[in-house]
C-alpha cells in the first residue's frame, strides 16, 4: 500500500513528540536517578527544585505522544499497550510514585519520611527510564504479531538481549542528560559533582552504545544492514558521533548549555536511528509478513487531517509559553520559602 503524505507527517510528529519527551523528561528522570548519589539533604533539595517547575510539563510530552499514537495509529496503540501489559503496569506504578514523591517529601519534618520519598524518587526514575528504553528496544527489533495484529509473545519475550541492552543504554543516556542539566543549575561542590557525573555517565553511555552496536550487528544483522542502506543513515550517524564527541570539550570550556544541546542532539539522533530502521512500519513484527505498516494501521485520512490542523494551531502556542516559562526559572537554583 502507498504511504500517504499525512501518514508520513504523523509518523514524524509522533517521533518529534517522543524525541521532545526524551530530551526534556530525559533530564528530569536523569536528575531523579542522580539524586541517589547526593550526600546531604540540602543537595537533595537542590536537585529536586532544579526540576520541580518543569517535570510535570515534560511528562505531558509522553501523554500527548500516547494520545497522538492512539489518534493517528490506533492499531499500533492497541497492539503495543495490550501486548506490553505487565511492563506497562510497572511503568504506571513508576510514574505514579514519581509524580507524588517531590510534592510529598517536604510535607513532614522527619528524616525517615524524607528518606522513603527520596528512595522512591530515585528508584521510580530508574524504573521508568529502563522500561521505556526496553520498550523502544523491542519496537526496534520487532515483536511477535499475529494476523489479527495482536501480540503473540509473553512478558519474557520483551526481555531479549538487544532490547535489554538498549534499555541500559537509555539509562546512561538520561543520566548524562540529567547531569549536564545540573551543571547549569548548581554551584560549588554540587556543581563539581555534576561535572564528574556527566563525564562518568558519558563514558558508560559510550560503552553501552558500543555493546548495543555489536549485539545488533551480530544478533539483528538484518536490522543493521537495513539501517545502513537508508540514505538518511550517514548524516544521522555523523550528527550523533559529532555531538557525542563535542559534549566533553563543551563541559571543559564551561559551556554547559552548549553541552546540553549536544547531549539533546545525541538523544534525537538515537531516535532517528530507530525511526530510519523501522520505517515504513510503526511496529515491526518478527515475522515480516505481519509488520504493522503505517499505511495499514493508521487512522482515516480525515482524522489525520483534522488532527494535523489541531497540531498546527496548538503546538506553536504551546512552544511559546513553555519557552517563556523556562526563561522565568532560568539560572542557578536558589532555595527559598516557595521551594520544596
Amino acid at each position, binding site marked *: 500500500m502507498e504511504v500517504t503524505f499525512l501518514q508520513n507527517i504523523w509518523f514524524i510528529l509522533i517521533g518529534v513528540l517522543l524525541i521532545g519527551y526524551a530530551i526534556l523528561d530525559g533530564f528530569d528522570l536523569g536528575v531523579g536517578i542522580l539524586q541517589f548519589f547526593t550526600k546531604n539533604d540540602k543537595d537533595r533539595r537542590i536537585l529536586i527544585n532544579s526540576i520541580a517547575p518543569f517535570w510535570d510539563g515534560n511528562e505531558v510530552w509522553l501523554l500527548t505522544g500516547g494520545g497522538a499514537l492512539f489518534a493517528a495509529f490506533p492499531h499500533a496503540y492497541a497492539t503495543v499497550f495490550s501486548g506490553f501489559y505487565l511492563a506497562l503496569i510497572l511503568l504506571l506504578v513508576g510514574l505514579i510514585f514519581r509524580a507524588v514523591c517531590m510534592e510529598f517529601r517536604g510535607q513532614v519534618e522527619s528524616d525517615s519520611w524524607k528518606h522513603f520519598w527520596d528512595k522512591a524518587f530515585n528508584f521510580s526514575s530508574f524504573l521508568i527510564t529502563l522500561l521505556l528504553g526496553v520498550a523502544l528496544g523491542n519496537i526496534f527489533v520487532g515483536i511477535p504479531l499475529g494476523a489479527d495484529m495482536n501480540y503473540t509473545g509473553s512478558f519474557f519475550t520483551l526481555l531479549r538481549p538487544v532490547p535489554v541492552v538498549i534499555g541500559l543504554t537509555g539509562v546512561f543516556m538520561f543520566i548524562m542528560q540529567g547531569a549536564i542539566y545540573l551543571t547549569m543549575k548548581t554551584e560549588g561542590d554540587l556543581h563539581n559533582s555534576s561535572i564528574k557525573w556527566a563525564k562518568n555517565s558519558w563514558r558508560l553511555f559510550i560503552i553501552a552504545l558500543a555493546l548495543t552496536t555489536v549485539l545488533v550487528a551480530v544478533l539483528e544483522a538484518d536490522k543493521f544492514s537495513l539501517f545502513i542502506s537508508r540514505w538518511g543513515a550517514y548524516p544521522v550517524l555523523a550528527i550523533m558521533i559529532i555531538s557525542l564527541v563535542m559534549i566533553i570539550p563543551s563541559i571543559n570550556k564551561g559551556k554547559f548549555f552548549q553541552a546540553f544541546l549536544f547531549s539533546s542532539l545525541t538523544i534525537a539522533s538515537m531516535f532517528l536511528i530507530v525511526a530510519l530502521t523501522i520505517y515504513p512500519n510503526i511496529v515491526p513484527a518478527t515475522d515480516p509478513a505481519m509488520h504493522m505498516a503505517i499505511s495499514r494501521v493508521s*487512522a482515516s485520512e480525515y482524522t489525520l487531517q483534522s488532527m494535523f490542523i489541531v497540531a498546527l494551531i496548538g503546538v506553536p502556542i504551546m512552544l511559546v509559553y513553555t519557552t517563556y516559562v523556562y526563561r522565568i526559572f532560568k539560572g542557578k537554583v536558589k532555595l527559598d520559602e516557595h521551594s520544596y
Partner: protein
Amino acid sequence: MEAVLLARLQFVLTISFHYIFPPLTFGVSLLIAIFLGMNLKTGKQLYDDMAKFWTKIFLIIFTVGVASGIVMEFQFGTNWEAYSRFVGDIFGAPLAIEGVFAFFLESTFLGVLIFGRNKVSKKFYFFSALMVVLGSTMSAFWIIVANSWQQTPAGYQIVDVLDSAGNIIGKRAELIDFFAAVFNPSTLPRFFHAVVGGWIAGSFLIAALSSWYLLKKRNIEFAKNSLKIALIVALFSSLTQVMIGHWHAVVVAKHQPVKLAAMEGLFETQKNAPLSLIGIPNAETKQLDYEISIPGLLSFLIDFDTDYEVKGLNDYDESLHPPLFLTFTSYHIMVGLGMLFILFPLIGLYLIWKNKIENSDLFNKLMLSMLILPTMANQLGWMAAEVGRQPWVVQGELKTADAISKVVSSGEILTSIIIFGILYLFLGILFVYLVAKKVRKGPEALIITK
C-alpha cells in the same frame, strides 16, 4: 473470574479514584484565581494570604490527580484493546488534543503558581492562576468529548478493518465529521454538568475547612472571608447546576431513553409519566417497589407537556437493560444531594449577613460534615452515566463484553487490580493525612513569612 468483569472492576477502581481529584481542582483553582483577583483589585493582604494557603491544599489535590490520571490514558490500550481499535479513529483525537491544549497549559502555569511568586509580577501571577483554571477546564472539555461520543456517537461511519493479506478482520468507526463528533448531542450538557459539579465540590471543600477554623476559633478573619466567597460560588454553582442537570436529563431522555427509564425506574411506556422520588426498581415484578412519585412531572420536565410519552424499560429487550438498582439509586442520591447543596450555602450566607457565623457552631459542624458529599455526588453522577449506558461501551455500536483485550489474561488483570488497589489505598490515606496536616498547621504558618 471472567476477564471482562475483572477489566470492568479495574476500570471502576482507577476511574473512581482518579475522579475524586479533577473536580476538586476545577473548584479550588477557580477560588484561588478569585482570591488573587480580589487581591489585585483591593490590595488587601488577606486575599493574598487566602490564595497562598489554599494553593498549598490545591497542590496536594492536583498531585494525586495527576498521578492517578496517567493510568487513564494507558488503560484503554492495555485492558480494552478491541475497543481502542474500534474507536481509535475518533476517541484518540480528543485525548491527543487534551494533551496539546490542556495538559501543557495547566502544568506549565502550575509551575509558575507554585514556584514563581517571587519571580513574576502580581498580574502575571494572577494570569498564571487563570491559565491553570483554563487548562483544567479544557481538559474536562476534551475528556468529556471523548466520553460523550461513547454515549451519543455522531459524525462517523462503520468500515471494515483488513489484515495484511486483505481479509476482513474486524470493524471500526471512522470519523467523517469532526465537529459533529466533538459537539455530539450530549457533549455540552455533560461538560457543563461536570465542571459545575467540580465548582461545587471545590467550594464546599474550602467552605467546610473554613468552618473547621471557625469551630476551633482560629484564624477567624481568614476563615470568615474564605467561607463567604466559597459559599457564594457554591450557591451560584448549585443553582446553575439545577438548570444544567435538567438540560442534561432532557438530552438523556431524547438520546438514551433506556438509560432514562433505568434512572427513573420506569417500566411501562406512558404519557403523563411520573417523576419518582424514592423507590427500588424490581426487575422480577417489573415495577418500582416503595415508590413515591409525582404523577406527570417526568413527562412535563422532558417536554413541558404532560402528554409527552416516555418509553419504559418493558419496550426494550431485557439484554439491553442497564443494571437497574445501581443506575436508579446513584442517580436519585445525586439529585437529592444536589438539593442539599443549595440549602447549605443559603443558610450560611444568611448567617454571615446577620453577622452570626462565628458563633453558629451547629451550622459550622454541619458544614464540616458536608466536606465530601459533593465529591460523592460527582462519583454517583459518573456512575449513573456509565452504568446506565451498559451493556454498551459505545451506545448502539459496541458491547462492553466485545471491547476487551484479547491477549490479556484474567490473571494479569487481577494482578493489576491488586497493584493499583494497594497503591491507591496508600495514596488515599496519605492524601487525607497530608491535607489534614496542612489544615491543622493552618495559614499562620505561611503568613508570618510576610
